[in-house]
Structure formats: C-alpha cells, structure tokens
C-alpha cells in the first residue's frame, strides 16, 4: 500500500482524523455525557474500562481528572457496591505519591465516574525512557536515580497497604511522574473492582495489565491476592525501568500462554540484560519477583528498605543463603527435565562454540547419554554468581530452537552424531511440554537411528519408547502403541523380560492400551508390570507405588472404583513413606485417590486429598498436573453445588491452558469442556453450555475417543443443553448416541470384569451423566 499520508494535505489529514475520531467517540458516546458540577475539557487517555478526561470542577474552581467508566464496566449491583467502597477507601489516602481522590458519582447517562487530582506530568515508562534510556540502557548512576525515584512509589504502596488498600493493578500506566520529578500512583483499588472481566477482552489494556500480574493473580483464586501481588508488580515495573524488558514477559496473546509464562518461567537476571544493574539490585528484584508469594518480600515497605540498602551499600537480605537455596530450587523446579537438563549442558557447550566435532572425537557418540548423565550433579549444585547455565535453562526453548537448527546444519550426514542430540533436544522439549516440537525431534532421532547400520538395538528401543511418550501426550494412542510395542519387543529380546527398562515400556504400553480402550491386554500388562517391578526393584523404590497408581487409574476407567481406591490407598501409604508428604509423586497419588473417592461419593475426604494434592503441586509447579487437580476439585464443586460461578472461571481457565498445551482437539481439553458445559447447565446457561459441549465433541471426535464413555457423556450433556433450550427434536440424535456408547462401554466393562479376577463392584460408568 502507498504512503497515503504523504499525498494528503494537512486539511485532508485533519478531515480523515476527524472522521476516525468521531467514529471512535460515536461508539461509546462518552464525550457527549455530562457530569453535574463539572466542565469536561479534553480526553487524556482511553482504555478498556473507560476514558480519563481533564475537567474543571466549578464549585471548587480547580482542574481535575475524571475517570469515566464505560457502560457495563460494573455489571452487577455487587460490583457497584464494591466499587463505591473501594473509592471510599482510596479517598482516605493522603500521600504525596498517591493521587488524591475527590469523589465518585454517576453521570446524567448513568455512567460511574471518579473525580481526582489532575496530575501534570508523564507516564512513568515514558518518563524513564526519555530520561534514562535515550542513549541505550541506563548506566549505573542512572540505575541509582531510577531506584531513588522508585523508593517513593514503594513508600506510597506501603502507606496504602497499612491502611488496608491493595492496588492490584500497578503498572506504568498507573504511575505518573510530575514535572518536578514526583511519582504519583493512580487508580488505587479501583481498577480491578471495575469489571476486570470486561477489561480482559480489550486488547491493549489486557496485555499491559497481564505483564504486571503476579502468578497467584492468574490462578483464578481471588482469595489469594494480597499485598504481595502489589510487591510483585512493583518488581516488574522496576525491572522494566532498569532493563527495558519485562521479566517473564507475559504480554502474550493467549491467556493460557500468559499464565504459563508468569507461573512457569522465572525472570532472567536483570544484570544479564543491563550489566549496570548491581548484584544487590539483582537479588532484590529476584526476591520481589518470586513466583511463590511466601518467598517474596511480604510488604512494599520491605522492598523499599531493601532497595534503599542496595543504594547505600548495606547488605541485602535477599542474598542470604543464595547458593543452597538456588540449588534446591533448581532441582525442585526441573524435576521433569533434569535428565534433559543434563543433556542440555552438553548442548550449551556446543552452542557456545565448543566444537561439535572435537567433542565427538573426544567421546564416542554412543556414550553421549553417559556424558549427559555425568553432568547432572554440576547442574544441581549450580552457583548463582559464576555459572551461566541457570540463565540458559531459563530461556531454554529459544536456545533449543537455535540448537535444533544448528545441529541440522553442522551434523548433516553424520546420523550417528546427530541422532543422540535430536533425542536430547526432543526430550528437553517434552519436559517443557512443547509437544509438537518434541514430536518432530524424536521422530527425526528415530529415523536417524534406523538409518544407521547395526545400530545398538537397546538405543533403538529407547528411541521408539521416547517417541511413544510424546505420541501418548498427544493422545495419538494408535501410533504410540506401535512405538511402545517395538520398544517392548526390542527390550525384552535384548535386555530380558525382567528388566527395569522393559518394565517401563510395559507400563507405558499398558497406559496407552487403556487410553485406546483395549482393556483386556491393558490389564494384563499392568499386572505383569507390577509383578516384574516387585521382583526386581527394592521395596522402597517409587516405581512400585507408581505402577499401582497406573493400575488404579485403569480400575477407575473401567468402573471398579472400590478396588481402585484400595490400590490408591496402598500406593499412598507406600509413596508417602518413600518420598514424604510434600513430594509430587505423593501429590499425584493423593489426586488419584481423591478422584476415586469422588466416584464413590465420599466427597469430604476427597476434597481433603485433592486440596492437599493441589497445594503440593502448586509448589512444584507442573502446570498440567496442577490443572488436573483443579479440574477434579471443580467437579467436586459441581457435584456439591458450591460456588459454581467461581468454579466456572477456574474451569474456563483450565480449558484455555489445556487447549494451549495440547490443542483444542485433544481429549484432555475435551474433558474440561464437558465439565464446563455441565457447570454452565447448572448455572442455567444452556446456550453457552451447548457451545462447550459441541466443542468437547469435536475434541473427542478428532482422536481415538469416538466410542469412549467420555464421548458418550459429552453427547449426553449436549442433548441436555438442547432440551433445556426447548429444542427436543434436535436432542434425539445426541441422546441416542450417548445411550448407545454408554451401553457399549458398560458391556465392555462388564466383559473385562468377568474375564479378569472379578470382585463385585458397582458400575460407575453411567454416574457422570447427571439427569
């Protein structure tokens, strides 16, 4: 397109702008509105919730800023009441760095407004950029100036906190700097009470706000939000002022990814971006940006004092126990990827110019895995001051992307060298749940191994097994089955049947067959795996309860809830003795038992177990695992009929998260959608429920699960949404389909039960569909 603007006269351009601006105004007709006692002068800012207008208060003869909320910003009476209460609280705050709120009220057209002090100045970020970023990143001296300026902001927030007011939306747009260099915080306690729901759909504002939201603010549990969320936001803003970048950069397009970023990724050290940032400041920022609120500074005052210490060279508490803490933290966070992480170090060495060829000459390619393994220890004991890998691990995916390309270029034609690297990269992706990328790498690894004449069959087996894992995560059970079968065949042949690796493939194949609905063989394999592991592993090995949990999930799937719960209870006793109560394996087992108890109708102990599981999982931060427990709790809420609205919000966030990890067309997402549909039905929103149910059916149809009980359940829910909308005729088909599938599944379940060693159990398959 041409540069149209070059050919236009000033007046043409003026006219064009005129039209666009009028259109914009016409959309919400805000500027035609009137407020008694004020003369509205000019628009200062326009955002998702409303417009800020410079105005003149006639009675007091003073210039003011009016924040005018758009229609619908306060949806309910409760919102309105909360808004007014917050304004009242904010109006009591008197601090040089907090904007003075004069009053609130309603316009002639019924919009809510707040009148406040008109602050002459620039937005904090614009001020910092102009003053300190003009010649690149701020120097050490400038960093100190920024921090000094920032002390006033922290002080203002601390002042408000002491009076029970949480800001909840600290971001550069809400902090102004006056011409004489005084920072002023705007929008105290107001921003979030005014329809944050609506705000989320407005593009720019939503993105802006999300970057400053603390992880716990994104978890859908408003009860958890306290002053520490403000501390986090203060950290983000300072980080951005010092480095020009956002710490975990959550300004992402999809809610799920943004949540993922904030909750899963720790920030890069600020000094890695701007070397002028001192180690002390680094440490203070790190502590302010802790994902876990308990590890963060507990008050804005603490943050202020620490910043002040950093300025004056006093010791900073954030750096106490640095080493031990970091090492522990690393191991906890990267439990899934620890082996992958070890392989990663190898990759980092390569990326940093340590020649691939020389490295390979130095060690046999087939020993790559051993090399990687030997690097586990150094990683766990990593030193914050000197070592770089923490940094690399933080930006793992980008690095992996690069290395993946690099390996392709430099090792083309050397499959023996490329294959182990592809496996390592693929497993690293898998550990991060980057499934699509993992699949590409692991497929390529397998292809390369297969192209090598006389490749070690045990290695080849591992390649099949690893590819099977990613396919399993993708719910491609048919393909996963083939890979696991081959892995199992090779391992049985070359390692023997009673081998730890062989048992692992058997375990995974059992889970895959269970996913496919091939229950007979699945059960046989589960029992066989338990037998083998009991025979070859010491009693205290976590793989044993782990297998019990797997078999437990099988029993649950076929409706043998009572047996399953016995098994889970055994497993829970074992695993908590082996690994302790705060271990993720224990949490996973508690989860399984909790779900089982829901099916058995024992809601109270179920909730207890699930709450406990969630707590531990949150600490360890595996997103998918946490989501599963959240969903189980949500189902419990639905069954008990408690706080459904809030539960719906949680479930919708889970749907987002799952569809971002696994895709919309994945049974995991489908299950969450069915739950969402059922909640919507319970909340008397059948039309919305219909949409969720239809999406769920799409999710199940796309895969193996066409005939599973989940599909039966989804069809049943769909039928119900139609009936409730008075569309009984349309409901006939899905209702019939649901019935057929569920009967089939029940028959299959019966068969399985008869054929295995049967104990009398009640049939739970039909239970999930509520009338």
């Amino acid at each position: 397109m041409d540069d149209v603007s070059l050919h236009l006269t000033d007046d043409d351009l003026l006219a064009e702008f005129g039209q666009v601006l009028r259109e914009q105004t016409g959309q919400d007709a805000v500027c035609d509105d009137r407020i008694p006692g004020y003369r509205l002068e000019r628009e200062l800012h326009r955002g998702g919730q409303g417009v800020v207008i410079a105005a003149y208060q006639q009675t007091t003869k003073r210039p003011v800023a009016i924040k005018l909320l758009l229609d619908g910003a306060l949806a309910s009476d409760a919102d309105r009441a909360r808004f007014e209460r917050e304004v009242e609280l904010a109006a009591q705050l008197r601090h040089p760095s907090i904007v003075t709120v004069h009053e609130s009220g309603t316009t002639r057209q019924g919009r809510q407004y707040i009148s406040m002090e008109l602050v002459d100045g620039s937005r904090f970020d614009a001020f910092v950029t102009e003053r300190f970023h003009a010649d690149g990143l701020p120097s050490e001296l400038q960093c100190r100036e920024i921090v000094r300026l920032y002390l006033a902001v922290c002080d203002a927030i601390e002042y408000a906190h002491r009076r029970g007011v949480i800001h909840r939306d600290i971001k550069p747009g809400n902090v102004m700097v006056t011409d004489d260099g005084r920072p002023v915080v705007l929008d105290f306690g107001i921003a979030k009470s005014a329809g944050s729901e609506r705000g989320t759909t407005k593009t720019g504002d939503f993105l802006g706000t999300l970057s400053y939201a603390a992880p716990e603010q994104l978890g859908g549990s408003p009860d958890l939000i306290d002053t520490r969320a403000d501390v986090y936001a203060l950290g983000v803003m300072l980080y951005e002022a010092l480095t020009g970048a956002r710490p975990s950069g959550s300004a992402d397009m999809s809610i799920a990814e943004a949540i993922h970023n904030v909750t899963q990724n720790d920030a890069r050290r600020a000094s890695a971006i701007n070397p002028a940032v001192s180690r002390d400041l680094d440490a203070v920022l790190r502590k302010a940006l802790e994902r876990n609120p308990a590890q963060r500074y507990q008050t804005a005052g603490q943050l202020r004092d620490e910043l002040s210490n950093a300025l004056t060279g006093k010791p900073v508490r954030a750096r106490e126990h640095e080493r031990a803490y970091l090492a522990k933290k690393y191991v906890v966070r990267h439990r899934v990827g620890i082996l992958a992480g070890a392989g990663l170090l190898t990759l980092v060495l390569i990326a940093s110019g340590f020649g691939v060829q020389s490295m390979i000459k130095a060690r046999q390619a087939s020993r790559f895995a051993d090399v990687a393994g030997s690097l586990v220890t150094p990683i766990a004991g990593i030193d914050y001051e000197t070592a770089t890998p923490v940094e690399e691990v933080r930006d793992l995916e980008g690095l992996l992307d690069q290395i993946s390309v690099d390996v392709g270029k430099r090792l083309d034609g050397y499959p023996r060298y490329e294959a182990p690297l592809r496996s390592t990269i693929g497993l690293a992706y898998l550990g991060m749940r980057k499934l699509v990328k993992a699949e590409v790498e692991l497929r390529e690894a397998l292809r390369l191994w297969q192209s090598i004449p006389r490749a070690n069959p045990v290695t080849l087996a591992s390649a099949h097994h690893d590819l099977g894992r990613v396919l399993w995560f993708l719910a491609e059970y048919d393909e996963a089955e083939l890979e696991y079968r081959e892995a199992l065949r090779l391992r049985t042949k070359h390692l023997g049947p009673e081998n730890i690796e062989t048992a692992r493939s058997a375990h995974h194949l059992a889970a895959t067959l269970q996913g496919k609905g091939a229950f007979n063989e699945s059960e046989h394999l589960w029992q066989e795996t338990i037998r083998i592991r009991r025979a070859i592993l010491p009693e205290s090995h976590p793989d044993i309860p782990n297998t019990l949990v797997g078999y437990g999930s099988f029993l649950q799937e076929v409706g043998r809830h009572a047996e399953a719960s016995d098994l889970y209870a055994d497993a829970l006793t074992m695993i908590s003795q082996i690994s302790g109560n705060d271990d993720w394996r224990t949490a996973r087992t508690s989860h399984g038992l909790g779900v089982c108890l829901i099916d058995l109708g024992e809601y109270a102990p179920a909730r207890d177990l699930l709450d406990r599981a969630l707590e531990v999982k949150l600490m360890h931060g595996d997103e998918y695992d946490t989501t599963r427990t959240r969903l189980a709790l949500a189902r419990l809420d639905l069954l008990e009929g408690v706080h459904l609205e809030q539960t719906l919000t949680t479930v919708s966030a889970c749907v987002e998260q799952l569809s971002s990890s696994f895709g919309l067309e994945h049974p995991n997402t489908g299950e969450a959608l069915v739950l969402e549909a059922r909640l919507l039905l319970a909340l008397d929103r059948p039309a919305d429920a219909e949409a969720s149910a239809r999406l769920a059916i799409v999710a199940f149809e796309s895969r193996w699960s066409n005939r599973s009980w989940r599909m039966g359940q989804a069809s049943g829910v769909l039928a119900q949404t139609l009936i409730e909308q008075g569309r009984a005729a349309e409901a006939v088909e899905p209702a019939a389909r649901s019935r057929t599938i569920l009967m089939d599944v029940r028959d299959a379940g019966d068969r399985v039960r008869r054929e295995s060693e049967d104990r009398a159990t009640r049939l739970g398959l039909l239970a999930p569909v509520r009338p």
Partner: protein
Amino acid sequence: MLDLTRTTTALLNGLHDVDNAEAWASFYGRYVPIMIGVARRLGLSEADAQDAAQETLATFVKEYRENKYDRDRGRLRSWLLTILRTRVAGQYRARAVRKEQQGVTFVGGVPDEKTTSDAWDVERRRTILLQAIDELRKVSKTSDQSVHIFEMLARDNRSAQDVADELGLTAQDVYRAKSRVTQRLREVVTKIEHVYDAEE
C-alpha cells in the same frame, strides 16, 4: 504500546518462540484491532467481533506454530482474513440459531472475499490513525494541549478562532499547534504504515 522498531517479518520470526512476549504483544496490538474492526463491519456486535478476532488469532498461532504458514504462498493479511471469514461465518451461524429460537428466519453465510478485503483496508487505515494519535497522546505531557487542540479541530470540526477563544489562546497559537501535531502525525503514520507494509 505500539512497537515501531520491528518489521512484521522480524515479529513473525519472534512468534516461533512462545516466550517471546514482546513479539506476541506487538503482533496482537497490530492486528487484533483491525480484525475486530473488520468483524464489526461484517455485522458482528462488539463482543462477538472481539471473540471472532481472538479466535482468529488463536487459530493463526496454532497454524503458525505448526509451520502451516508459508510466506511465499500468500500474504499475512489474506491468511488472517481467511481464518476470520470462517469465524465470522460461525458467529452468523450462532446468531441464526438464536434468531430461529425467536421465530425469525435469519440467513447466514460466509462473507465474500472482496467485502472482507475492502473492510480490511479501511480498518487498517483507521487502526493506524488511532494508533498514531494514541502514540502522540502517550508521549505528550498532561499540560501539553496541542493534541487536544488538534482533536477539537478535527473531531468537532471547530474553527481555529473558536478553539482559541475557549482555551484562552490566540488563533496563531492554535494554527501552530495544529501544524505541529499534523506534522508529527504524518511522521508517525508513515512509520506505522511502513511497519505494516513490510509484511503486506
């Protein structure tokens, strides 16, 4: 904030990295407003238009990550538009369902390519102009009235003298402010146009 430092090409490369928040934010800021505008022009309500734009973006991201987007095969805008048209058709369908319940027959369908493409052009220009003026509002100080003067002249179609009288300035002051803002806007608009053009 609008990111003028990167071309869309650089941006698209950045999108391969899920954690590249800046790239995502910029992409979002650049194309979502246009898509919302197009969807509105095709008859959707504000809320439905926002949904359609969000869904389009979600689909785009998915396909982009799966490397289904081939730069040589088509322009970014036509790709986005193809997805958007489907989404809008989906909303038509949903609305048709609602209307039918009320006993009204509503004929939906997929909007044709020409209509959507024209709407894109209009919305793109509109978005750019709004971004430009936002940019100016953002960097100017609260006390600086020139953007406000420009808006009074442009939006409210008022004469320079009229504006001068209201603000207690001379007509000369108003002309100067107008000329200054127009010039700045022209620069910013050109810059933004270039950013978009790099891809389209």
